């Protein structure tokens, strides 16, 4: 992906550029608000915007870009973790909000998810990964043609995983996307639900839901060579 990073702190810039570069993304950097606004008009797959910038703040940049009709997804990256700040960021036209300090896996996962979202066409009503299938209109799921009995929230979790098939979803992302929870749980909330879902989806079949150590979970079709 071609990513524009609008960030004034050189250390953060180096860290992000190196981290995301390793994932195969091409990173360009703008070090202040005005340069960021100017360069954002170019063709990018994703913008990563710091909120506090010299010249023009991140919220204003994104507001202006959205006013001119720019569609590229925007990820806010900021130390501002006030309770209202995330809402303000999303309202300004951001697609995701990540508070510093963050883990690189978290950033990489969110970047991956956002890029994927942008690339996708109109919303499908049937999602398919290998022999797993869910129909979003009838709210039913099946594996290898056999119906799976899922609770509404389990279906939601599975839908999220399938929409991001092949992508790593961190626990925090799943908390937000499935339950709209914006806090760090002390209990293994996500693990419990994933393990239940695995019991219903993967038992007796080739494993589709994988644990990515130190990062999160990923639903993907089995490798044809290994499978």
């Amino acid at each position: 992906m071609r990513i524009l990073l609008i960030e004034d702190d050189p250390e953060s810039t180096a860290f992000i550029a190196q981290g995301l570069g390793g994932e195969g993304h091409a990173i360009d950097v703008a070090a202040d608000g005005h340069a960021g606004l100017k360069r954002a008009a170019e063709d990018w797959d994703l913008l990563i915007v710091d909120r506090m910038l010299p010249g023009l703040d991140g919220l204003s940049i994104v507001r202006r870009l959205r006013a001119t009709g720019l569609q590229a997804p925007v990820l806010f990256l900021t130390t501002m973790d006030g309770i209202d700040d995330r809402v303000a960021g999303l309202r300004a036209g951001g697609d995701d909000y990540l508070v510093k300090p963050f883990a690189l896996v978290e950033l990489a996962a969110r970047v991956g998810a956002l890029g994927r979202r942008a690339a996708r066409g109109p919303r499908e009503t049937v999602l398919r990964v290998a022999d797993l299938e869910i129909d979003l209109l009838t709210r039913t799921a099946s594996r290898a043609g056999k119906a799976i009995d899922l609770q509404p929230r389990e279906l939601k979790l599975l839908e999220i995983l399938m929409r991001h098939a092949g992508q790593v979803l961190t626990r925090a992302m799943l908390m937000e996307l499935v339950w709209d929870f914006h806090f760090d749980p002390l209990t293994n909330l996500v693990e419990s639900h994933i393990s239940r879902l695995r019991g219903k989806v993967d038992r007796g079949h080739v494993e589709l839901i994988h644990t990515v150590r130190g990062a999160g979970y990923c639903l993907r079709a089995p490798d044809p060579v290994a499978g």
Partner: protein
Amino acid sequence: MPVSAPAGSRRGWRLWRTTVFRLTLAYAAFFALAGMALLVVILWSATGFMTRQVDASIAAEMAEVMADAADPALHGDPYKTVIDSLARRSPAFQYLLQSADGKPLAGNMHALRPVPGIRLMLRDHRLGHENNPEPTVLHGQGRVLPDGRFLFVGLNVYSVAEMRQSLARAFLWCLGPILALGLVSGFLLSMSMARKVERISVASRAIMDGDLSQRIARGGGGDEFDHLADSLNAMLDRIATLMLNLSQVTNDIAHDLRTPLTRLRQKLELAERDDLTRDALREALAGAGGELDRILSTFSALLRIAQIEAGSRRAGFTALDLRPLLQTLHEAYAPVAEEGGQTMTFQPGPLPLPVQGDPELLTQLVANLIENAITHAGPGAALALDAGRTGERVHITVSDTGPGIPAGLRQKVLQRFFRLESSRTTPGNGLGLSLVAAIAGLHDAELTLDDNHPGLRCTLTFAAAVRSTL
């Protein structure tokens, strides 16, 4: 310590500057002036009255003399006869009849200048006054007779003058004590005021010098100074509590962060060893990262609590129904409880649960209570999430059948970093319930911890909601 002048001179100097003393001085001066004015008025009216009386009796006597002298039965010089007889009979009055050339003809007086009309004489004109020590002030009336002779009738009014003088003297004598009393009482009053104020300022200086346990002593009379002292002491109590809280929190932060920081250091030190395999190195670094995450999450929890306690979030409150929110939380946490061998029930009751609040914070509040129950109640415990409405008051209850919290510690667990000894081994930073308390406070909701016989029951009761459309 502030530099101070010798106490005595400073106090004396300050006395003049006290408001009370100045007021007293002003009042003393005012009363003295008022007294003087009163004296003048009294003297003036009393003297006037007496003078009029004297004038009247002299006029009456003169008229009597004239009437007697006009008696046709009298032989010789009628005036001389009348005066001679009157001078003998009425020694109180002074009489004089003198010839046109100024020679006394009759009466008990020496010669006078023959001026007609009312006159006041300080020189003693009485006959034989040399042998009479009684001082005199003569008030009288003169008249020139048709034959050119001069007639005078007068009265010694020395007693009137004397009364006037003694009156004035008495007033002047009183003026001294009035002023003196004013000064003394002003002095005493300002001393007592100064002492009361000094008590407050001594205590304040001691507190400024670092002794926060100092309190302002009450005089005991229940006066306005006691009232002031009570208010100031209450303020000092509050400040002391806050300071204690602050220093305790600072202490706790330092302590609580020292453990993960120490472990972090150990892990990094281990990672530096040369004989480490690549996998072992990676594991050590991952462990270090985990410790750092703990530290960071502690910080963000602290920041969040501080932010919520600042209360600015209240602007974003909306009217909401708690039932779907609780439903989601139950769905999310029931599997977690079951995995730990616990059960979790949810009874929302039949009614909607309207409250004014922030859905994200309320979700976090209930999630914290549930997680608390899951982590501390132990395997086999029965967890219950209940909600309901009594009148207009909405309440949420999270209860478990675990070991509970001893009654004496239930308030303490709401403090930052406070952890029961038994929970040291379970995950958590000791901030969960502090956050719950902060969010409850923001929503004007009352958080109570009770015994669930056995276990812990946390109840959150919202203040009666404003009537909403929910």
